[in-house]
């Protein structure tokens, strides 16, 4: 019996090899149970993904062209472009929000992200106390954005810690959150507190993977520190760089948590994420919120596609 089984499998093997000498693996037919297993492993996540991501997303896009209070399906009425027209031509808050999101993006791109990269580079060079810096800067990343917001709210509100420290009470407090000329920058400092550590960590992981002999070779050729970084390290880090750029863009666009914790749904600091929520949540939801969500989606999709392509390329290689 053992022999016949061996012979059988032998023959099968031969047949397969004979049929496709070049790429034997690809052409191998899956058995029924393999197909079932694969079907389950691919099918279930796909179904869940469709159910939880694509169906709601598609419905949101549909709803953005309707009027609806969010309760009875029979009340949905077609509105055409009315919600978008309303947002683009009649809602000054939308432009305030776009302005704030743009400031957020520019700040992250020009200040927070470079700062994170610089820190990562310094820590990678093992400057004195680098372990301490690494932990200190990484610490905020452990906290969720909501917790970050709560902490800084305690620090900066009118009856908060900082105002207490500089001897001001609630009647003459420095208005960190209520001064609409500066509050976006206050928020940027708070958001950066976390973002810098996040970028630092990602970049540090990338730097550790750069072959040290590259640097040594550059040093032997007489390159300065800056030249080494710019011409040797940076190009070697290309995949990480792209991820960092994309993360910076996405984090700026999807900003919500910190603002919501500090301002609630009031428009103290309008950003797109809050406008979506403000119009959808609460009583008498309006599909203007869905339209805001679609606008945000369109703005985010570019960076997301770039991000995913990079991810897949890495997975393949």
């Amino acid at each position, binding site marked *: 019996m053992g022999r016949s089984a061996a012979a059988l499998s032998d023959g099968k093997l031969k047949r397969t090899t004979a049929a496709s000498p070049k790429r034997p693996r690809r052409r191998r037919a899956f058995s029924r149970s393999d197909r079932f297993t694969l079907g389950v492993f691919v099918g279930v996540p796909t179904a869940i993904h469709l159910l939880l991501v694509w169906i709601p997303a598609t419905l949101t896009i549909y709803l953005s062209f309707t009027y609806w209070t969010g309760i009875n399906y029979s009340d949905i*009425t077609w509105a055409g472009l*009315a919600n978008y027209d309303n947002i683009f031509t009649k809602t000054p808050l939308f432009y305030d929000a776009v302005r704030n999101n743009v400031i957020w993006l520019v700040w992250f791109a020009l200040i927070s992200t470079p700062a994170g990269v610089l820190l990562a580079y310094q820590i990678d060079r093992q400057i004195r106390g680098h372990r301490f810096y690494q932990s200190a800067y990484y610490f905020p990343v452990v906290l969720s954005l909501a917790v970050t917001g709560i902490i800084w709210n305690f620090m900066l509100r009118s009856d908060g810690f900082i105002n207490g420290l500089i001897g001001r009470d*609630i*009647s003459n407090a420095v208005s960190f959150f*209520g001064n609409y000329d500066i509050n976006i920058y206050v928020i940027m400092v708070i958001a950066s507190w976390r973002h810098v550590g996040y970028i630092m960590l990602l970049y540090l992981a990338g730097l550790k993977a750069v072959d040290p002999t590259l640097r040594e070779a550059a040093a032997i050729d007489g390159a300065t520190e800056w030249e080494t970084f710019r011409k040797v390290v940076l190009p070697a880090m290309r995949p990480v760089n792209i991820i960092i750029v994309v993360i910076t863009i996405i984090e700026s666009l999807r900003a919500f948590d910190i603002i919501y914790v500090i301002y609630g749904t009031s428009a103290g600091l309008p950003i797109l994420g809050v406008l979506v929520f403000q*119009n959808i949540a609460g009583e008498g939801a309006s599909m203007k919120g869905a339209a805001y969500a679609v606008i945000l989606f369109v703005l985010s999709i570019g960076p997301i596609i770039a991000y995913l392509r990079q991810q897949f390329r890495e997975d393949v290689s």
Partner: protein
Amino acid sequence: MTTDQNKVRGADVGYTLNRRELLIGAAGVAGAGALLAACGGGEVGPLTFGARTVDESPTKQLKALVAAYEAKTGNTVTYNATESNAFQNNLSQYLQGTPDDAFQWMAGYRMQFFAEQGLLVDLTDVWDKIGDQYSESYKIASTGLDGKQYFIPQSWYPWGMHFRKSMLAELGIDPDGIYNWDDFMKMLDGMKSKGLIGFAAADKGGWEAMGTFDILNARINGYQFHVDLMAGREKWTDARTAEVFKYWEMLVPYMNDNVLDLEWDGAMQLLLQKKAGAMLMGSWFGGNFKEQSDADYEDLWIIPFPEINPEHKRDTIDAPIDGFCAAKNGANNDGGKDFLAFAGDMEGVQAMLDTGVPMTSANKGQDTSTYDAFQTQQLAVMAEAKYITQFLDRDTRPDFAGPIVGPALQSWFKNPKDVNKILESLQSQWDALPPL
């Protein structure tokens, strides 16, 4: 209520509370309550109750109500508390999901909207049982657009100018002498010259300033204009609306600098800590003063907002009614109704009053002779008004009040000179609202 009024949108129904009926109600005796004390109870099984607050005083009150109900009927009640803003933001989803059987909510448009959507339990038979403990005006405020009742009132409070009596005494100000705008401005000047904030204000939450808009509009342009504006029958671009902001701007120099950095309780702290001399607010915060100390509570005083236009005297007031509803999607509708019958009955009201947390109940059974000085004054403030409104965010469409008026008033605080631009934008955003 005339048929003509019936035709207008739901937002108006809450307004028909009229002064005389409310006073008769509040001043009535407890007789009716005693007769009906037997109602409520029965075998309805365990139920859940959703509180729209996590604050100390109201929680104490509601827990006492729940305990009294449990002791009386033997039905267990699960008490779920949610912070009020979070509760409001989530209400649509909450009512469509698995809500508590009974929950805390507000009268007027905000109740009617959800009743229209079929998410609230019809409480008409509860009103049949306990209705005669309430004046007609409360019944009207509890009635949906279909003529059925969906709401059990708990308490009311007036919006007015709040002071600390001790501070007024020190400043030599007689609150009864502040009748009109000139008196008021003189008082503010006096406070400012003493280094005090005259008019404590807050608007970080986006709703606080609506109270100031309401009362200024009612004083300058009268009740009818205000109601019509809320319902969209008058325009925000009307010169009369702009006039409101002219007066409001006169108040700005007397306000704290951090209006947009404070929520309502920040403004309250200014008064509590004697940094500010006066504050426009609803009297609900008495409980917060009492948490501080009895002396602080007893120091509180309220007068109506001053007269501006002699034609309208001081005839209108924001006096919102808070209370309870039962959720249709709750697991135990009968339980919810049974609990609300108890909550609305004098027996339940008494359980809340016995906690010592100040409350001006909607129930006739709360003898006004048991009112403390501050509550008696609240009643007097109400008595002067002929028309009662709820509050801007309860009197106009919810998709207009929160997302549109709130931010507009905040941007006005940032730059009062922008008033015309802001009003034009408000009107065009009203015009762009989806048809109801």
